[in-house]
């Protein structure tokens, strides 16, 4: 679609379980629907970022293949999912064993070496696990792959706390924040709270995704909303978010709030 332009490479950070993979895969599907070339790179050892783009199927992960000692080519790890979205899963160790952070570093370096797909895309989404607990989790940024970072949160205290911490971490490594996305959990004054948070850290709330059962239902079947329920209201929300991301060219160095202010905000 835009052959001459550099791809937009984004990462979505946020507290574990807040809906990063759901959001990432729905945004990927929505962008693909708009005609963009899209790639999603799942960096979670659970390797479930792309599952709803592949009809519920799992794909071999980069780390599993590295571990087995085979020579890896692009075809072994890059799979085509819904509407041509390129899907890659980094993979990683079982919970509590080894080092998932190192795994991300090793896998994305490998991917860079064997595949040029990222450069041919309009949008690349790195779906990064939970909090930034160690260097490996910011490797896509540190290695200069990611150009835009987004933070996903609900209006609950703990996810906001995590989001705030992530903003602090991003600033620490000189990475500007391109926007805050609210994945609602139906708590009181949710849009207002997250909007205020976004404003106070110096950023913007670029989307409010209401909590809808249909997202869950589609996921359970192994599909994105865009594929399984394209006419739903929530599908339109993801389309809007996709457009917002594709058109966005503004980012700021976030100013993380102190603990007290954060708590005040959520009261």
């Amino acid at each position, binding site marked *: 679609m835009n052959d001459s332009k550099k791809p937009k490479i984004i990462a979505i950070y946020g507290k574990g379980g807040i809906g990063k993979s759901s959001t990432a895969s729905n945004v990927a599907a929505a962008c693909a629907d708009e005609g963009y070339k899209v790639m999603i790179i799942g960096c979670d050892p659970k390797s479930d970022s792309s599952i709803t783009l592949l009809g519920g199927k799992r794909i071999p992960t980069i*780390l599993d293949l*590295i*571990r087995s000692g085979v020579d890896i080519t692009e075809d072994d790890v890059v799979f085509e999912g819904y509407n041509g979205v390129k899907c890659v899963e980094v993979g*990683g*160790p079982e919970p*509590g*064993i*080894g*080092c*998932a952070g*190192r*795994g991300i570093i*090793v896998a994305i370096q490998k991917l860079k070496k064997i595949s040029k797909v990222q450069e041919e895309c309009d949008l690349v989404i790195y779906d990064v696990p939970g909090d930034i607990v160690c260097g490996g989790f910011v490797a896509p940024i540190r290695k200069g792959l990611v150009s835009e970072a987004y933070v996903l949160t609900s209006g609950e205290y703990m996810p906001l706390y995590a989001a705030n911490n992530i903003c602090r971490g991003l600033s620490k490594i000189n990475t500007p924040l391109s926007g805050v996305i609210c994945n609602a959990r139906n708590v009181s004054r949710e849009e207002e709270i997250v909007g205020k948070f976004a404003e106070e850290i110096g950023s913007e709330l670029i989307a409010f995704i209401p909590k809808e059962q249909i997202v869950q239902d589609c996921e359970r079947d192994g599909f994105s909303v865009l594929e399984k329920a394209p006419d739903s209201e929530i599908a339109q929300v993801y389309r809007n978010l996709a457009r917002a991301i594709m058109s966005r060219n503004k980012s700021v160095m976030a100013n993380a709030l102190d603990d007290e202010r954060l708590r005040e905000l959520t009261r």
Partner: protein
Amino acid sequence: MEKEKKEISIIHPRPSSIVAALYTLRDLNVDVAILHGPPGCSFKHARLLEEDGIHVVTTSLDENGFVFGGHDELVALLEKVTEMFNPKLIGIVGTCVSMIIGEELHDAVLEANLDVPVIEVEVHAGYRNNTKGVLFALESALDSGIITEKEFDRQKVLLEEATMVEKRHGAASKEYLAPSRGDVKYKVAQHIIDLLKEGKRGITIMNAKKETGYMFADITVAVNEIAKQLGVESNIVNMANIDDTLGLPRVRHHAKCIMDDFNERGIRIHHIIGGMDEYPIAGDIAGKLIEEKYSDYDFVVITGVPHAIPMESISGMEIISVTNGPRQVLPMKEMGHDYVIVEIDLHPKTLGVNNIVESEFGATLREVAKEE
């Protein structure tokens, strides 16, 4: 917390806690030491320890091991070494990688389920004082019933003292210490011979760390040989930390071997100032002895860990020191030692031996004396 901040940040390379743990396992007479980590970790010392008669092997963790953990590799290696070497005691030492990724050494030992006792040392190289590695190894040995509580407590005191000795005047005393070869051996040898010829009275103090004594003892021997040659044997008093009733089994063995060699060569050790692991505290004993009996002596030749001898007891004498640490030259000169000699590469030559080994300085003394 506050105290930690005030510590100086030392930038010259130093031995690591991992290596310290390996040497301690050696002193505990393990037959096999397993390094759980990358293949090249602690290579130089692992290699030296092989010369000392223990098998050192590694789980050779690679990038896959870093990411997925090395539990299976460790279990497999435990089984393999048991088969290959038929050991009576095994040690496992952690490394930076295995500790950062949270490897559980004990789980692997349980799974391997061997009939051989295993000392597990969870250690990495990130400790400010490398004596931590010794301490962890001893703690684990205590837990496995390899050493007694009494021996552990004794070792702990010695380690704390050893750390202090290094901080006061040793390799941990300055942010950066340039390595130095020290004074020219030929010149110093000539000077000692001149002192003896002038009828000056001297003291030799061997305050050696464990097996390094095999070479430092040679300097005691050489000084005495030359004194005898010049007919002034009675002008020399000898002190050495070779009490063979103290320390871990291997350390006692070294003391006995060196003492046997002294006896065989007719060298009389007038004062035994401690065990071979007591170099951090034996200096004080030597100091007291000097103050009581030998304060009017003219010179002192100190080998091993010379900076552990309190200056106030020897400051009236000419001080000649022999160390194996190139970074020890400057601090000892600053303390007021008149001559500092370095026995370079001493350690490798003292591993796997049971007899006194000729030192460069001892050889120089003998050569210069021949010309007299």
